[in-house]
């Protein structure tokens, strides 16, 4: 019933490529060239957007040229502090709360079968509920402002984290548990030193899914119940027919989402290098 997302494993090219002149290029250069080369579609779409919008007079689909000019005016870096920073701050707090709660409660549900039995129906029900539906209710509870955003972000993020934690722990290799018992680890020590580390790839997959959800809720919550933030900015621009402003807001979200994902993947690569290393070694055997 969960949606475990398996971490992507990128395999480094095993042989160096050769350039047309027959010289050998190293694997890292090859990777970099492949990454740059794969941006061709992106560049093509941007070019199409530019050309397609160039002569537009619609206030909601302004020329890309003007949007980019406005982007530089607003977001490099004047409005970042007033409009973007609060949103990111709410996301950070909400995501942090959700991560800690999700992992802790997920681990407890694994460790205490009675708790798991009792709470499973509730958890699965709340998991499939689209969080934006609850915004009016949360608005009533918390009022307009920061705490409402943080609350709804936490609520939305916690479910994929919790369920992936539970799932990852349930998938623990029994042999590792037997080994841990043979080495003298107590039940809770086994949970902390063996089951959780073993489940960490799955937990990280849940954290990643949670991040995606968090970004969405960060924006949506502000569109409904806030007086600041990037979601509020976009909504305001829309209501004031400020087309370029609105589009700059959308671009900002694109950049923020990309940067957060890149940072997350980099962090994941570092924290789970044992996992990627052992999988690569297993493949070679």
């Amino acid at each position, binding site marked *: 019933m969960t949606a475990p997302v398996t971490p992507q494993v990128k395999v480094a090219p095993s042989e160096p490529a050769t350039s047309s002149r027959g010289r050998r290029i190293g694997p890292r250069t090859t990777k970099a060239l492949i990454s740059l080369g794969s941006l061709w579609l992106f560049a093509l779409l941007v070019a199409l957007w530019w050309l397609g919008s160039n002569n537009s007079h619609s206030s909601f689909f302004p020329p890309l040229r003007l949007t980019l000019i406005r982007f530089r005016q607003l977001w490099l870096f004047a409005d970042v502090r007033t409009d973007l920073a609060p949103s990111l701050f709410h996301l950070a707090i909400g995501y942090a709360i959700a991560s800690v709660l999700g992992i802790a409660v997920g681990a407890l549900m694994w460790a205490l079968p009675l708790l798991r039995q009792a709470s499973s129906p509730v958890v699965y029900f709340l998991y499939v509920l689209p969080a934006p539906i609850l915004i009016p209710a949360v608005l009533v509870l918390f009022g307009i402002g920061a705490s409402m955003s943080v609350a709804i972000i936490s609520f939305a993020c916690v479910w994929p984290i919790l369920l992936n934690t539970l799932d990852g722990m349930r998938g623990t290799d029994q*042999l590792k548990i037997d*080994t841990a018992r*043979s*080495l*003298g680890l107590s039940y809770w*020590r086994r949970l902390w030193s063996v089951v959780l580390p073993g489940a*960490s790839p799955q937990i990280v997959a849940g954290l990643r899914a949670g991040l995606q959800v968090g970004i969405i809720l960060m924006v949506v919550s502000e569109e409904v119940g806030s007086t600041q933030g990037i979601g509020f900015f976009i909504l305001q621009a829309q209501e004031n027919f400020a087309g370029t402003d609105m589009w700059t807001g959308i671009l900002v979200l694109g950049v923020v989402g990309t940067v957060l994902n890149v940072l997350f993947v980099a962090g994941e690569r570092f924290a789970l290098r*044992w*996992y990627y*290393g052992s999988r690569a070694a297993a493949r070679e055997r």
Partner: protein
Amino acid sequence: MTAVGDGSAARTLVLEARGLHKSYTVDRSDHLAIADISLEVAKGEFVCIVGPSGAGKTTLLRCLSGLMAPSGGVVLLEGSPIVSVPPEVGIVFQDYGRSLFPWLSVARNVALPLKVRGIPKTERTRIVGEVLSSVGLGDVAARYPWQLSGGMQQRVAIARSLAYKPELLFMDEPFASVDAQTRFELEDLILRVRNEFEVTVVFVTHDVDEAVYLADRVVVLSRPPATVKMVVEIPLSRPRDQLVTRADVEFAALRGSLLSLVMGH
């Protein structure tokens, strides 16, 4: 500790099993894996357990070591009934790749049972260094298990189980997953560390040659429901040598009779 006099010298018993039986329920029918097994292991002995495939050797090892509770009978470690896996016991499993923790370096894997026992860090580092040297892995402490070859990984697993100086070491077909050459090296390794650490070993194997080479006594199990078919003394001289011992006429004779016992002639 229970002492047993056998006429020539009193042996101290490390492990005693009395009337063990174990049955599983599979698809609502009861499957009796172990019927009635009693055995004794004296301190310092090297006992091998052999039997036909599926005989319940691993089930027996799990009951003896405390990983599994038997359906009936009792297991005594130095006279006291065991509850779960006693801290004086070590277990080395066949699948070293899954037994070793891949998120920990070799040193941290070996140090884990010491950490759990509250041994301080400097002491841990010293012990880890010593035991890794004993198994011939002095220079891989900082690497990760999955960076090592199969034979080296099993050495790490052995080192980890010996680090806290257990009284009794169980080994479940530990060399079945390595190539023949490495297997000979590891056999000699376990004989060497057995002396060095003064540990009693109970070694399950399907390989009769290996059992004769390593053991003081070999316990032969019957087909399931498993009972002890026979216990064979191995009077071959020590230290054992891969070339000399295996060329011994008595080695061949013991091997032959054990093989026929296992194969059910």
